């Protein structure tokens, strides 16, 4: 694959172990500014671990990761600088249940970016409108549906005006009815030129917005291709098997079809 001309994430020869278990094996990946990359693969393939290394929620033992020119080391200041520019979405939303939707959104801008409160509120309202839930601002996360919670989580990330967004299976914990509302917001975000790295099984989403699809298995990148090429003619045997499983399930449940 060609290396993007304006790389924002560079991952070089990254290895990681959990005790004896080798989870990431010599990973090399470069993501360009504004690029949208989808990472897929069977569970346990290390895809979540990989993106969690990008904002240092996990530490890697060998190799280098640099984000927007900052190399991730044990230096807390660097980690802080990277985290400020990288938003992350989780499978379980991880909203703060003791704070209202609005308070969830303004927490980081006020305490990390030191933004005046009124300004932070305006910004949050703007993003809540963008994810189409401005009317829920004063509710608590527990009062919202899963889809709404995930959209709040997106707004919470956006309030930090990140340069990169990481998505760790953002729709896996959602009911089929709610997946679409979250995917719509993600498609909208992709349209705005955000750099996105998504771990997801939503193949419809990958087809529609991804610039590149990365297939991982057993801690290795097995295949890297454009979505068209990957979905129509996967090169590795493992990817063919994986796609076969996913697509037959998708047809049975008709759960992913934004086209």
């Amino acid at each position, binding site marked *: 694959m060609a290396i993007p001309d304006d790389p924002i994430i560079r991952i070089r020869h990254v290895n990681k172990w959990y005790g004896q278990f080798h989870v990431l094996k010599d990973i090399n990946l470069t993501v360009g500014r504004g690029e949208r990359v989808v990472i897929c693969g069977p569970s346990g393939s290390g895809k979540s671990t990989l993106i969690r290394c990008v904002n240092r929620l996990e530490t890697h033992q060998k190799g280098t990761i640099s984000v927007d020119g900052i190399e991730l080391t044990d230096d807390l200041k660097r980690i802080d600088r990277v985290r400020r520019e990288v938003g992350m979405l989780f499978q379980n939303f991880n909203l703060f249940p003791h704070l209202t939707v609005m308070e969830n959104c303004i927490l980081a801008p006020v305490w990390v970016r030191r933004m005046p*409160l009124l300004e932070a509120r305006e910004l949050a309202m703007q993003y809540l409108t963008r994810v189409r839930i401005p009317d829920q601002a004063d509710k608590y996360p527990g009062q919202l549906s899963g889809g709404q919670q995930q959209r709040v989580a997106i707004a919470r990330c956006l309030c930090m005006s990140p340069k990169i967004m990481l998505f760790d299976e953002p729709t896996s914990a959602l009911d089929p009815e709610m997946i679409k509302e979250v995917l719509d917001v993600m498609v909208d975000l992709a349209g705005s030129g955000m750099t996105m790295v998504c771990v997801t099984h939503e193949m419809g989403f990958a087809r529609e917005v991804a610039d590149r699809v990365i297939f991982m298995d057993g801690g290795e990148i097995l295949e890297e291709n454009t979505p068209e090429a990957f979905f129509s003619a996967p090169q590795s045997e493992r990817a063919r098997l994986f796609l076969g499983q996913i697509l037959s399930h998708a047809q049975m449940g008709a759960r992913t079809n934004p086209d």
Partner: protein
Amino acid sequence: MYVKRERSPSLPPPRSEAGVVGWLRANLFSSWPNALMTLAGLALLLYSLPPFLKWAVIDANWLGDSREGCLPPLGDAAGACWVFIKVRLGLLMYGFYPEAERWRIDLAGILLAAAGGQLVAGSLLRAATGRGRRLTGLFPLAGVLLSLALFGILPGLVACAYLAAPDILARARPGRLLLGLAHRPQLHLAARLGLAAGAGAALALGFGAAGQGLAVALSLLAASLIFIALGAYGQSAASVRFSLLLGVYPVICYALLLGGGLDLPLVDTDNWGGLFLTLVIAGVGIATSLPVGILLALGRRSRMPVIKALSVSFIEFIRGVPLISVLFMASVMLPLTLPAGMHVNKLLRALVGVSLFYSAYMAEVVRGGLQAIPRGQYEAAEALGLRYWRVMRLVILPQALRLVIPGITNTFLGLLKDTTLVAVINLMDILGILKSALADTRWLGFTKEAYVFAGVVFWVICFGLSRYSMLLEKRLKPGRN
């Protein structure tokens, strides 16, 4: 094939489920065993309550000021002799605090009742409209008027300054939430200087009477600095009120109760006693053990091995020894380790002992709460760029502490009641005074009255604390409307 065309409406519940009869049936007589238990409970009450009431209230002796008031020509020997308590009420409440100076304790009590009452009433009336909210303003108003009427101009002004400050501070910057201000480094500096001045005051106190004037001056400096910092930190009148209660009220009390400067004669802590002393020890213990306990709990979960080892060994050591031995060690061992000439006040030693002892218990309660918070909460907060202390303060602790309110209350109640153990180092708390009263040869044989009185006093305080904690728990439930 079956297709439902109309949706079923929701109907009201059947009559037997509602009203008094419904409640009785559902709760007291729902089944045979339940009905039997209800009747047995009723029988027990009927058997035990009337004789007690007859002794404690109906046949009781209230009049007179000597033992004769309780004996046959004047009183009824079958009833309780409350005269025994009555003649010692001053002693039981204030200990050996000089009578002319007792107003200082009263003033501290009024300030606490006014500020605390407003907070409690405010949280009770949280849902109420503007008018209900404004009613809570009656507490500080009553506090100021009472202090003016009872103690004169100067104490009245102090009360006015303290009680009105939160509202003035909150109104001075309406709308502009002060969260943004909290980043100003000057405020951190003010808070730190305040704490340093407070520590200096404690140290000066260690040098006995000579350090007394300095201690009072330093404590006032500490109070004003903390006051400024907290005032600017607060987001609303209620939060300012709360931080003032925790940060400034103790300092005011310190200067007011101990005296030794500002025209207030020094009242040595050897003269402190009674319920007043009990409340001082319990109050200081409660206010210290929670923050120290939180720090210890965080330390125990720390990734830094030294901090972790220190916290674990402190907690395990303290939990392994009885409070009595901690108090003994504080009063016997500590003076041996201090440089000659330096004298640590007996009360201060008891305070440190009780606070550290309960910090260890509190640490384990808080750790239980910390463990209940899912990892995702830490990760989400860290991913947003928040640093460790902010993750803890803004995201983890508010959730963890709410979860363990019952455990925290438990520990507080244990602390309150264990203050009676300070008797072993010759501090006269309320129970100590009752015991010495029992030894009075003119008043032999009123054991029942003494212990019933002590029991009722402790029960009232503990019950109040427990109800307040339940209220707090309900109010802080996530997803409230």
